[in-house]
């Protein structure tokens, strides 16, 4: 055993020398820059992803195909034949941009529920990171940037596959990618906060049954919310999904009620991200720094 080599990389500071000794040696170490800290955290989550990407990528391609098959050929042909589409659009062009936003929500939920709980409870990776120079904000930023990466990949694949099968009317569809990412983030950040507040996975039942599933049905994805009873409509306004759906549909079809409305949607989504961030930072800190 060459145990004598354990400290061989040490670059020990000269006695009494108060200067920085880089990071391998004894004495005060040079602090990490913000970028170095975030890269280190993202590096971990990408290492994890390298083990699992094959399985997840198949799902990313399959999901738009299933939707197009069911909505376009199934439901769409029925709606188009009976009602002549929706507001002058074929049902396929009406529904596909909205589904981009909706599936972003699902991807975000997948990344911010059980996964995050696992890093708290099962392998305790967040706690392991906090034993190093990293801080709670670094961990949260790094992990959320990884979620942005997943949202961007999933949305890009979805848009590309849907475009290939005629799901969009024009190049406006490209807007669906950043809009999808923003919509997903508007879910992911608050749900990170929610997860930090939960000791068990039981809370997810309520989240999925009472929030996510109803949202998919009542946020204007499959039919305009004007079809809903009047008292239900304000509820849709208070959810990120409706704003994402409206934005994506407007951008992809070019049918926008007003530019002001578009900015209101963006602001609403950013508000979910911003408020979610404040809550997540507070709840992560409460849970991890006890």
């Amino acid at each position, binding site marked *: 055993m060459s145990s004598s080599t354990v400290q061989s990389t040490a670059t020990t500071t000269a006695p009494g020398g108060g200067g920085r000794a880089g990071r391998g040696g004894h004495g005060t170490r040079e602090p990490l820059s913000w970028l170095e800290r975030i890269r280190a955290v993202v590096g971990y989550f990408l*290492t994890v992803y390298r083990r699992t990407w094959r399985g997840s990528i198949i799902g990313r391609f399959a999901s738009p195909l299933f939707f197009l098959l069911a909505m376009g050929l199934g439901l769409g042909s029925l709606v188009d034949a009976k009602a002549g589409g929706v507001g002058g659009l074929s049902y396929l062009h009406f529904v596909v941009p909205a589904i981009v936003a909706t599936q972003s929500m699902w991807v975000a939920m997948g990344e911010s529920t059980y996964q995050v709980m696992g890093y708290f409870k099962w392998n305790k990776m967040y706690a392991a990171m906090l034993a190093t120079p990293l801080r709670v904000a670094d961990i949260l930023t790094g992990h959320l940037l990884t979620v942005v990466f997943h949202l961007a990949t999933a949305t890009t694949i979805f848009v590309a596959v849907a475009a290939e099968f005629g799901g969009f009317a024009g190049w406006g569809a490209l807007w669906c990618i950043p809009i999808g990412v923003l919509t997903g983030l508007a879910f992911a950040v608050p749900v990170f906060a929610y997860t930090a507040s939960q000791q068990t996975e039981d809370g997810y039942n309520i989240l999925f049954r009472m929030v996510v599933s109803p949202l998919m049905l009542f946020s204007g994805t499959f039919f305009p919310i004007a079809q809903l009873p009047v008292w239900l409509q304000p509820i849709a306004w208070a959810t990120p999904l409706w704003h994402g759906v409206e934005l994506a549909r407007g951008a992809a079809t070019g049918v926008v009620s007003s530019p002001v409305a578009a900015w209101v949607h963006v602001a609403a989504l950013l508000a979910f991200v911003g408020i979610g961030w404040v809550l997540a930072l507070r709840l992560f800190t409460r849970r991890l720094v006890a």
Partner: protein
Amino acid sequence: MLVSARGLTKTFGDFVAVDGIDVEVRRGEAFGFLGPNGAGKSSTMRMIGCVSPATGGELRIFGQDPAVDGPAIRARLGSCPQADMLDEELTVQENLWIYGRYFGLTKAQTRKRATELLDFAQLTDRRGDKVEPLSGGMKRRLTIARSLINNPELLLLDEPTTGLDPQARHILWDRLFRLKRQGVTLIITTHYMDEAEQLCDRLVVMDHGRIVAEGSPRDLITRYSTREVVELRFDSDDHADHIDAVTGVAAASRVELLPDRLLVYTDDGDATSADLHARGVIPLSTLVRRSTLEDVFLHLTGRTLVD
């Protein structure tokens, strides 16, 4: 002085887990916290490791205040928490590579250091394997290797060998001795008195969040126990029945009652045994042994370390 604590306190709600302790750890020594489960050892270690803020008192590590310089202090120490906290889905070496980056080491530095540490932890031939199927001792060695990735001046080990079999414990102790010889300051918590005796130059005995004694293992034994102990087991449900018969036996200064035996503290175990025999006290078994830290703890608290 690497660590100094004065009146260090940790409370969780109304519950006082660490109750105003004073501790000083010098560079190069192996310092121990010995105490039973719930004594407040992990809470103390987490404060020293700058992952848990102190509720009260003063704490300095490398002369710095964790409340102000937490990240800078953590950059210089290594920490093996009571739970391993490894990513068991990743390989052995991936766990090391990832961790080096958290300390701002370059990829090349991290890889080089990981290679050395795998050798040190005797895990080189498992480096490409997933962590999950490894034995408990291997995982513990990997955790220790990982905590050394930044070449720390101070290594915190919270119950390094709990749950390991005797052979795995001895391998681990050997690695810790090597670190100590290389000048790494060690702070170790344990509820095993043999571990404390083996590894620690100096230790504090902790109970209910307080320090009840402090010194080298040898000091503590001389101060709070006798040279030898005679353990008597009787064929009886209640060993209290035999206390009278044993009290005042030759060379003995004290008798302690445990559920399954009597401990007779004595300066001469053989003389005590002979006198018991002469008195007609016939236990099922008689064992003469040297005093240990377990006896110190029993004397100070009236309870055993491991229940």
